[in-house]
C-alpha cells in the first residue's frame, strides 16, 4: 500500500475530477509544448537549412546580416586562394541576378537566376531529370528550374528556353541566350511559389555578356579537423575587407535579431500556460482536500502520518499533471503541424523552413516544467493537511 497506489485509487474514485484535470492539463500542456517547439524550432530549422548545402562558411562583401549582397571583387582569384588554405576543403562561387525566362516567344516569367561554380549536388533536390553537368563545354547553358516554374511554363528536362538577365538598377538591353533544361528541382532556400533557375557561372557570364563575373556570395566548406571557426579566421587573414560567417554565426545573428520576436512570444506564452496548469491543478486538489478534510482528520487520528498524507497528495498531483502532460505531447504535436502549416503560408519563406521542429530538448523542458508544476500545485493542499487540527476537524464533521 504505497502512497502512489493510494493516490491512484483516489484518482480512480474521483473520476470526473481526474478526467477534467487531465484534459485541462493536456490542453494547456499542448500549448506549452508548442511554445517550447516554437522557441527554438525556427532556429533549428534555419540551422538545418544552412547546413543542408554542405558548406559551413559564408563570405559576403557587405557588413551586418549576410543577406544583403554586393559583388566581391576578384572573386575567382580569391576562390583559388581560399582553396589553398589548409582550413578550407571546398569553395563555391554564387551570383544571383534577376532575369526573365521565355519558354516560347509569348510566354515568360520573371525568375531568380543563380549562377554557381558548384558542379553538382547544390542546395536543391532533383525532382526530375539531371543535375548541372560537371563539364559544361558541351552544353553552353544548362539550367535547373524550380518545380513551380516548370509547372507554370510547362517545361520539362530537355526543353529549350531563353533567358535574359535584368541586373539590379540597370536598364537592361542584354540579348537573350538559349538554354536547355537539364532538371526540375526543389531549391532549399526558395519559397513555395518562387520562380528560381540555377545555372553554371560560365553560362551566367554569357548571359551577362561579360568576360568575368564576380560572385556576390562565396560558400566555403571547412576542413572537419579544424572546423568553421578556424576557417573564418583564416579567410579573414586573406581578405580582411570581407565578412566571413560560420553557419553558427549566421544562426546566432538571426537569433539576436530576426527570430528574437518568436523567442519572446514563446517565453511569455509558455510562462502563462505553466501558471494556468498550476492554477488548475492546485484549485482542483485544494477543493478535493477541503471536501475530504474529515476523512483526512480521521486518517490522522488513526495514526497515518502527516508525511504519508502529504506524499499521497503529491502523487495525486503528479498523476493528474503527468497524465495531462503525456497527453499533451501528441496533442501538441498535432497542433504544431497545423500551426506550422499556417505560418509557412507567409510569403517569401523558404519552403523547407519550419517554425515548429521536434526536439528532445523541448520534451525534457516540458517534463521538467510540469514536474515543478505538480510539486507546486500540491504544496498548498499538503500544507493544509499538515496543519489540520485533528480534533477540531472531527468535531466540525460531526456537527456539520
Amino acid at each position: 500500500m504505497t502512497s502512489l497506489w493510494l493516490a491512484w485509487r483516489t484518482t480512480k474514485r474521483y473520476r470526473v475530477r481526474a478526467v477534467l484535470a487531465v484534459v485541462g492539463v493536456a490542453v494547456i500542456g499542448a500549448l506549452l509544448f508548442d511554445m517550447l517547439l516554437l522557441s527554438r524550432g525556427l532556429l533549428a530549422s534555419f540551422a538545418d537549412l544552412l547546413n543542408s548545402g554542405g558548406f559551413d562558411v559564408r563570405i559576403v562583401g557587405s557588413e551586418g546580416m549576410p543577406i544583403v549582397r554586393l559583388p566581391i571583387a576578384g572573386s575567382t582569384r580569391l576562390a583559388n586562394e581560399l582553396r589553398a588554405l589548409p582550413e578550407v576543403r571546398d569553395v563555391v562561387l554564387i551570383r544571383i541576378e534577376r532575369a526573365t525566362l521565355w519558354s516560347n516567344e509569348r510566354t515568360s516569367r520573371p525568375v531568380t537566376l543563380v549562377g554557381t561554380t558548384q558542379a553538382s549536388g547544390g542546395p536543391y533536390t532533383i525532382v526530375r531529370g539531371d543535375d548541372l553537368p560537371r563539364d559544361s563545354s558541351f552544353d553552353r547553358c544548362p539550367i535547373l528550374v524550380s518545380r513551380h516554374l516548370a509547372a507554370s511554363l510547362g517545361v520539362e528536362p530537355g526543353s529549350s528556353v531563353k533567358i535574359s538577365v535584368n541586373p539590379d538598377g540597370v536598364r537592361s538591353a542584354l540579348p537573350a541566350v538559349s538554354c536547355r533544361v537539364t532538371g526540375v528541382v526543389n531549391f532549399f532556400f526558395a519559397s513555395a511559389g518562387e520562380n528560381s533557375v540555377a545555372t553554371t557561372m560560365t553560362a551566367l557570364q554569357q548571359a551577362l555578356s561579360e568576360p568575368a563575373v564576380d560572385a556576390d556570395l562565396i560558400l566555403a566548406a571547412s576542413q572537419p579537423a579544424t572546423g568553421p571557426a578556424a576557417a573564418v579566421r583564416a579567410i579573414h587573414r586573406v581578405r580582411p575587407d570581407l565578412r566571413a560567417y560560420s553557419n553558427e554565426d549566421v544562426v546566432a545573428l538571426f537569433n539576436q535579431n530576426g527570430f528574437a520576436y518568436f523567442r519572446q512570444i514563446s517565453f511569455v506564452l509558455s510562462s502563462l500556460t505553466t501558471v494556468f496548469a498550476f492554477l488548475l491543478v492546485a484549485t482542483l486538489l485544494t477543493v478535493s482536500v477541503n471536501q475530504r478534510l474529515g476523512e483526512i482528520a480521521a486518517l490522522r487520528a488513526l495514526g497515518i502520518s502527516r508525511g504519508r498524507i502529504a506524499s499521497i497528495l503529491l502523487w495525486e498531483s503528479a498523476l493528474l499533471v503527468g497524465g495531462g502532460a503525456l497527453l499533451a505531447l501528441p496533442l501538441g504535436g498535432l497542433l504544431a503541424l497545423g500551426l506550422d502549416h499556417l505560418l509557412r503560408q507567409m510569403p517569401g519563406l523558404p519552403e523547407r523552413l519550419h517554425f515548429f521542429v521536434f526536439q528532445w530538448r523541448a520534451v525534457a523542458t516540458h517534463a521538467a516544467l510540469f514536474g515543478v508544476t505538480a510539486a507546486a500545485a500540491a504544496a498548498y493542499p499538503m500544507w493544509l493537511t499538515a496543519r489540520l487540527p485533528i480534533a477540531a476537524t472531527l468535531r466540525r464533521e460531526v456537527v456539520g
Partner: protein
Amino acid sequence: MSVVEARRVTRLFPMAAGPVAAVRDVSLSVADGEYVAVSGPSGCGKSTLLHLVGVVDQPTSGEILFESRDVAALKEAERSRIRLVRIGFVFQRFFLLPMLTARENIELPQAEARVPAADRRARTRELLEYVGLADRADHLPSQLSGGEMQRVAIARALANRPALLVADEPTGELDEQTGGHIADLFDRVHADGTAILVVTHNPVLAARASRRLTMKSGSLVS
C-alpha cells in the same frame, strides 16, 4: 495498571466572547482491559475528553499519561505512532476510505505500521471473520450498510492490536437493532482484553460498560 490517565485536565477553546471550557478539571483513568462509558447531554464535553484521551488533542492544563508517558512531552510523530499502534479509533461517521474495499481499509493502518504483507493479510482475514464480514471483504464502503461499515471501522481500529479502543458515538448513525449488534461486538472486544472508552448517548451501549460515567458542563459528575 492504567492504559491512559487524565490528571486534572482542562480544555479551553478561544471564542469571540472569551474562552469556553469544554472540559474542566477532569481526572479519569482507564485500566488495562477496562470498559468505560461516558454519557451526558450534547455539548457537555464528552467528545473533547475522548480526543484528549485518544491523543488527538492536547489539554490547556493538566496531564495526559498514556501507558505512563506524558503525552505533552512527545513529538507529533511519536503521538501519531501511539495512535497507530496503541489506540484504535471508532468514529460516529465511520470515516472509511471510500476508494478502498473493506479488506483494504483494514489493511491500511497495518501497512502504515509496516506489518509484513502476509501477516497483514492473515490479520485482516481474522478481523473480517471476527466482525462477521468475511464475505464482504472486497466490497467498497458504498456497497455496505451503516452497520457493516461500522463493523469494518471497528476491525480497522483493532488491526494493530491496540491497548485502548476509543469510540465516539459508535451507534449514533445506526438504528436500534444495528446499534445492539455493535454493542455486542464491543462486548467481545472487551472480553478479549482490550480496554474501551466509549462516548455515547445510547443507554443500551452505556449499560454494557463495566464503569459508567456522566459528564455535565465539562465536568465528570458521576
